[in-house]
């Protein structure tokens, strides 16, 4: 609604200025390359940092590639076929993909819903509002290393603070937060929500501030309750923002690396249950220097994420007005 209005305004403004330009006989024609020249600076960065590495990764994925060994035999699609061959290492890769999927499934709903509630509360006017906005955003400025070490000591099953306090209030004090299931997932998702919820909340807050006040007034005049206002004004008004938040959160969760690496260890305790795809790919490429197969895995993971992203856009980007 708001966006449509903006579009209309811009379109009519553009028409007016074109008309003006035409009547004055000004420079109404633009060169064929003008739009491309405007895009050039970004395209250069995109080319160097996205397109070229992607192409190079695909090329590497067709080889048995260790950059230090003189022989880098071309193996065609073998690296991809191996991932579906049912061999032991392929099994470990898919296990790590499943760990990533689990983390994404468990972490995205709380990371989408909880920050929305926080944003709605922080959008109200009350004393100390800016203080609380800062409080919720504060953890996000910490690096993953800080957050990881901090939570490892909080979550430690035997000497950790959380179990200690659980014990004091009479709850079980031996919960394996870092090396038992499902506890490890709960710990990892919990620390991630604590760490990154503030970022999503800020995005929502910006979205809330973009919803025109008169829509709420009109709804109130029509006798809408607060819930109905939330349901029929706030949520539709946040649709584009929500699409962004969901997409970015899925990608961030699917790329999870630092939290399990630091909290459940580099093999992903218990066993390798919490070793995620990025952890496995890192080990394959930068630990074992098997960059061909690591590239094949990266490209597979990226393709799956692209499909999920496209699906996500279709689902949430669809307009029903």
């Amino acid at each position, binding site marked *: 609604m708001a966006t449509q209005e903006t579009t209309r305004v811009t379109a009519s403004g553009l028409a007016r200025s074109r008309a003006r330009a035409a009547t004055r006989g000004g420079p109404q024609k633009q060169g064929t390359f003008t739009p491309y020249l405007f895009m050039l600076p970004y395209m250069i960065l995109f080319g160097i940092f996205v397109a*070229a*590495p*992607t192409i*190079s*990764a695909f*090329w*590497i994925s067709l080889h*048995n*590639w*260790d*950059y*230090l*060994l*003189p022989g880098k035999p071309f193996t065609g699609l073998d690296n991809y076929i191996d991932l579906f061959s049912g*061999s*032991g*290492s392929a099994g*470990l890769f898919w296990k790590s993909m499943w760990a990533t999927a689990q983390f994404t499934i468990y972490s995205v709903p709380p990371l989408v819903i909880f920050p929305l509630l926080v944003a709605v509360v922080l959008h109200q006017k009350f004393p100390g509002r800016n203080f609380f906005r800062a409080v919720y955003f504060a953890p996000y400025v910490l*690096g*993953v*290393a800080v957050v*990881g070490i901090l939570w*490892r000591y909080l*979550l*430690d*099953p*035997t*000497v950790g603070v959380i179990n200690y306090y659980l014990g004091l209030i009479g709850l079980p004090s*031996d919960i*394996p937060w*870092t*090396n*038992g299931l499902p506890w490890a997932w709960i710990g990892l998702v919990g620390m991630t929500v604590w760490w990154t919820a503030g970022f999503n909340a800020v995005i929502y807050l910006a979205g809330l501030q973009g919803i025109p006040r008169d829509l709420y007034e009109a709804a109130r005049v029509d006798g809408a309750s607060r819930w109905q206002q939330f349901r029929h004004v706030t949520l539709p008004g946040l649709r584009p923002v929500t699409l962004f938040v969901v997409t970015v959160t899925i990608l961030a969760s699917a*790329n999870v*690396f*630092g939290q399990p*690496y*630091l909290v459940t*260890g*580099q*093999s992903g*305790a*218990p*066993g*390798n249950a919490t070793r995620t795809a*990025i952890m496995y*790919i*890192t*080990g394959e*490429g*930068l*630990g*074992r*220097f*098997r*960059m061909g197969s*690591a*590239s094949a*895995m*990266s490209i597979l993971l990226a393709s799956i994420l692209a499909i999920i992203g496209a699906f996500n856009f279709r689902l949430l980007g669809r307009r029903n007005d």
Partner: protein
Amino acid sequence: MSGDRARRRGLTRRDFLVAGGGATAGLILASCGSGPEGNPAVSGSTSGGTGAKYEGPNVSLAFWNGFTGGDGPFMKDLVTQFNSETDNIEVKMSVQEWADYYVKVPQAVASGSGPDVGIMHINQLATNAARTVILPLDDVAQTLELQEDDFAPIVWNGGTYNGQRYGIPLDTHPLGFYYNKKVMEQGGLDPESPPATGDDYLAALEDLKSKGIEGHWVSPFLFLGGLQWQSLLWQNGGELYNSEGTAATFNSEQGVAAMTWLVDLVKNGYSPANVGQDADTIAFQNDKNAFNWNGIWMINAFKEIKSLDWGVTQIPQIGSEKAAWASSHNFVIMNKEGQDPNKIDASKVFIKWVIDHSVDWAKAGQVPADNSVRTSQEFTALEEQSAFAEQLPYVHFPPPIPGIGDIDVILETAVSEAVLLKKEPADALNDAASTADETLQENAEKYGTG
């Protein structure tokens, strides 16, 4: 915190960015850097200087290592002293996390901007030799007049790959048996006579248990559970791999017995279940854990805790023979393309000097590799380090097979599954062995060693 501990637990922000930026980031570097071609044994020139003296023009050497913990300042002091005693060589030391270091050094060397001289763990030598990151040093050993007699044989022989020497051993850092005297007293044990045999050990744990103390916390991680298991496997007469390094043998009867012994500590209530990373050591420092088989690098960390009353001795003999896990820091010279021969000569002088002064390095919590240093009065005065040194005749290293470090994470998975009681010891080890076999064969094919 020593380098080894740092290697496993440390993760710098940059480390995360490199890794988290996706494999692509690494791959750009990979595709840009062109590795040194050809056989390093032929292309690398390490001739010239005697190692006793360097008389060429002034040179500056880049010296990289991973001594990020309490050991860093000791090495820094050695370098400072060397620089002040040597007019025409200036060594610039730079330190980073070991995990980072082993990723970065090959890339830096390949691009020609890497270090001139560095430190590598003994289990990394074969990999880096096969990947042409480091130069063979047989002539260095000759010109430095270093030979087997000067060193503990196990350490000296561990520095070779394919019949050539790639590392000049600086030290050995074995696992030892730390005991908390205060906790032993609480358990009614004599704090001056820690158990030395399997029977005594279990009897002591039983005494501690009767006083409500869990006496040996078993870590489900490679550090330390995995190192304790490997020590026990060797004590039972087992081996990790076959002699060619193409198949895992750690799931043998001896390996399973070793793992079962550790798992039984958990099952019998001598250890809590689900011990967290480092929690065994933290509990030891907090007087909750009596016995901790930990590395020599903990000496200075434990000394810093004034309230901690502890001792250290050899790992008790649980199996049929004595054995203990150990690793070793080795000097290496990097295989940089077009390297200035003067720098190689200067590197030799520096290496020789540090090894001659390695008693100062021992104070950081190490056993010097050099015999004359190790038998010196100055070293034998270091009570704890000397206790570790007595294990030297029977310490074990991983075999010199390229890519052998790849197996660590597989071993850790097995230790985790067994100690956390997710799988029976035999099942956990059999599963790990079949994964390890695949990896070993892939590596044999890749490095042409099969």
